[in-house]
């Protein structure tokens, strides 16, 4: 249990998707002009990450990894399909996003309207594929760990985008040098936030 909590906190603060790895920067910069839209996109990312990371974990451990196919027959013990992982991961993500979109539309039209165009956009959000690739690199032991990692990373991304959206709403009233307006100042503010987040480095629970 303690390990899971540790992993969760690490995924949110220490290994924050945006401040430590710059994943999902494109939508982070493009959709952070207003807090309300940022919240919508953030929730959608949490949602999709929590689903795709465990699904890709199963895929990795029962199909792709070297010897992973041995549950089918001992003859496959030496098959290594890991070169297919990019294609399969992205296919799972794209279809999962499509599925999630359809489910949400059916069962919660209000949430669907709130998320709107963001759901399909998420398929090409680097944070989602990044979550799966980090899962592959870190060799998690069980599916619980993978789920907790996905959920934590999603929350970290959510916090980052909501924070920058709030800052950008305020910064509109400040006297920023003209060439820095908009994009430039957002980069620099994100850098400063990253420095602040670095203070979490090395924390263990």
């Amino acid at each position, binding site marked *: 249990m303690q390990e899971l909590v540790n992993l969760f906190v690490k995924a949110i603060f220490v290994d924050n998707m945006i401040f430590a790895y*710059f994943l999902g920067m494109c939508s982070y910069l493009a959709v952070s002009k207003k807090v309300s839209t940022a919240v919508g996109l953030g929730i959608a990312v949490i949602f999709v990450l929590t689903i795709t990371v465990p699904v890709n974990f199963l895929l990795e451990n029962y199909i792709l990894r070297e010897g992973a196919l041995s549950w089918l027959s001992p003859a496959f013990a030496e098959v290594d399909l890991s*070169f297919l992982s990019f294609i399969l991961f*992205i*296919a799972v993500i794209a279809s999962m996003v499509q599925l999630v979109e359809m489910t949400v539309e059916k069962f919660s039209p209000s949430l669907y309207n709130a998320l709107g165009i963001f759901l399909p956009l998420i398929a090409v959000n680097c944070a989602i*594929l*990044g979550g799966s690739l980090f899962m592959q690199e870190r060799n998690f032991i069980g599916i619980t760990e993978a789920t907790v990692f996905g959920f934590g990373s999603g929350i970290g991304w959510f916090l980052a985008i909501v924070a920058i959206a709030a800052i950008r709403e305020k910064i509109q009233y400040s006297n920023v040098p003209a060439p820095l307006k*908009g994009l430039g100042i957002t980069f620099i503010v994100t850098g400063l936030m990253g420095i602040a987040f670095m203070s979490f480095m090395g924390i263990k629970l």
Partner: protein
Amino acid sequence: MADVLEKEEKAKELLIDKQPKEPLLSKKNRKLLNDPLNDNNPITVQVLGICSALAITVKLYPALVMSISVLFVMAAGNVIVSLMRNFIPNRIRIIVQLVVVASLVALVDQVLKAFVYDVSKELSVFVGLIITNCIIMGRLEAFALGNTVWKSFLDGIGNAFGYAWILLAVAFFRELLGSGTLFGFQVIPNAWYLANGGFYSNNGFMLLPPMALITVGIIIWVQRARNTKLIEE
């Protein structure tokens, strides 16, 4: 009436036939190549592809390898999607594009693992993340789906170079100020260092992730100060 219409159509066909063939590097095509370098730079103006751009700019060499990989994937992806543009059903186009790009990236990944294993380890997940690099998807979606093969190829190359020069500029400053080297060669004289009785020491801060963002911010500042039509309202 029908006759007139037919005649008109024939005349149109003739006109199309008679139009002079566009030279390979006409003014319009050269614009496709030049624009992304400055006025329409993918990173500083279109805000695409920042995800993988920043994490691998600690040193110049990985940044160069990354740029070449992106150049290949962009050019080839643009050409392939442009070839298929009339056959892709609109509803599933994103999945088709993703599969094309993912196969190209898998190819690049295997080549890197075979020939420059160290760099491939250093780039780790970021090679895979070329798939979701927004520049590639963005250009496929915005350009290759609606333009001819040669134009898409030029557009891909142009945007990849626009991406590459920002990447290399950021890596140049980070490596020079952070470790005092360029491409791994010592540039700052050894005698300058504090340890050898000098006055200089490397700024380790440049090696940390946040400084990449601030460096890009400053590049944007300089670019927009020189090119005032890019300033946002």
